[in-house]
């Protein structure tokens, strides 16, 4: 790193050979310059990578990628249940749409973690990322994610058929979407990551409009609009 400065060696450099000392000084100087330029370039290169950082193990992005997969997987599950039991073409089409979209998005989230070199599994409880940083929607780690249907609710949907199943599905999916929007908003509050932000914003926009659609479908089928507790 720090090349020794060229010292004229008095004993060895006789008067007429002063030129040699100068050459040596130039060579050493050039070497020092090369090393310094190299180190500076290396440092700048590394520092410039800071803006395109790969999210780490406990980052909001990784937590979101893990928890939203679980959330979306249940979205697919609910949609596939009603896809089989419903006789209503509009509900079946909605279920197809939700199952395909959420399965594809779930795959994206798994892919992020693979590309970032992070495990799908986290040793810390789910939703821990939402307790760090950001302003609102802090959650208790390990508690159920917002909007997730309970095993009992899923059993009820499975047992139902026809118009009953349609209504139960719409109610569960509205709450499910509200929860997903909440999680996506929590990521937007905490992330600078371009791809993750684009994903979260798409979830917010599309699921909000689907909530409106589902509320109108629910009203058409004689259900009361789903009112969610303020978070």
């Amino acid at each position, binding site marked *: *790193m*720090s090349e020794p*400065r060229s010292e004229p060696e008095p004993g060895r450099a006789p008067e007429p050979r002063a030129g040699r000392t100068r050459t040596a000084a130039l060579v050493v100087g050039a070497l020092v310059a090369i090393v*310094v330029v190299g*180190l*500076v370039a*290396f*440092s*700048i*290169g*590394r*520092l410039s*990578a*800071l803006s395109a*950082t*790969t999210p*780490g*193990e406990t980052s909001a992005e990784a937590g979101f990628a893990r928890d939203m*997969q*679980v959330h979306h*997987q*249940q979205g*697919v*599950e609910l949609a*596939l*249940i009603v896809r089989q039991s419903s006789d209503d073409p509009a509900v079946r089409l909605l279920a197809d749409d939700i199952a395909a979209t959420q*399965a594809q998005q*779930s*795959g994206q989230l*798994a892919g992020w*973690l*693979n590309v*970032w*070199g*992070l*495990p*799908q*599994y986290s*040793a810390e409880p*789910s939703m821990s990322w939402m307790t760090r940083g950001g302003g609102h929607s802090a959650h208790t780690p390990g508690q159920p994610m917002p909007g997730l249907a309970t*095993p009992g609710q899923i059993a009820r949907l499975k047992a139902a058929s026809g118009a009953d199943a349609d209504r139960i599905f719409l109610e569960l999916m509205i709450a499910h979407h509200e929860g997903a929007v909440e999680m996506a908003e929590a990521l937007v509050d905490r992330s600078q990551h371009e791809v993750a932000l684009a994903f979260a914003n798409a979830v917010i926009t599309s699921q909000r409009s689907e909530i409106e659609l589902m509320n109108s479908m629910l009203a058409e089928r004689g259900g009361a609009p789903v009112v969610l507790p303020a978070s």
Partner: protein
Amino acid sequence: MNATPAQPSKPTTKQQRQAARDAKLAEFRAKEARRKRTRGIAIGAGVVALVAVIGLLVTAIVLTPKPATYAAGGTGETIEGVETFDNAAGHVEGAVDYPQTPPAGGEHNPVWLNCGVYDEPVPNEAAVHSLEHGALWVTYDAEKVTDDELATLKSKLPSTYVVLSPFTGLDAPIVLSGWNTQLKLDDAADPRIPAFFEEYWQSQHVPEPGAPCTGACDAPGKVS
């Protein structure tokens, strides 16, 4: 012409020489002082530059993220005791004779087992299909694992893509199985349990990553 004392004209030769020497000396001293100053500035600048470069280097190394030490879906060599296998996939009806106990991959039933907690042994052929989808199968010897230990074990499991079931004929109290991988354990608090999950849960190296672990068959004894 004589020099008069009142009129300081021509100094003597001696004086002239002395003056010349003084002048030379003064010039030399000035030069020396200049040289010293230049050298001082050069050394100072050199030190500042060196410190700046080292500072930049240290900043660059400290601030930038460390490369992840985890290799997703690796060989599991870092987890002591993990065995890996080379079973092939394929759908078959009927019973399958599996080389591992409990099975860790191989031919399986076309219908997969829904993930969740079971308090009865589950059909091997269905559970192996779930392994193919990236689930892990956590089996325990109900005679050796206490309720407290079972609770400890449950607390480490993710909410999806896991089958927990008792299994008869295990040669260890707890066995974790994934597609073509297995870890036998004595203790529910073993730190290798989360490590195994990090390495293999929903791994991208199973035959069908992302395929569901719900929507197929519930075996008897499904608790949640």
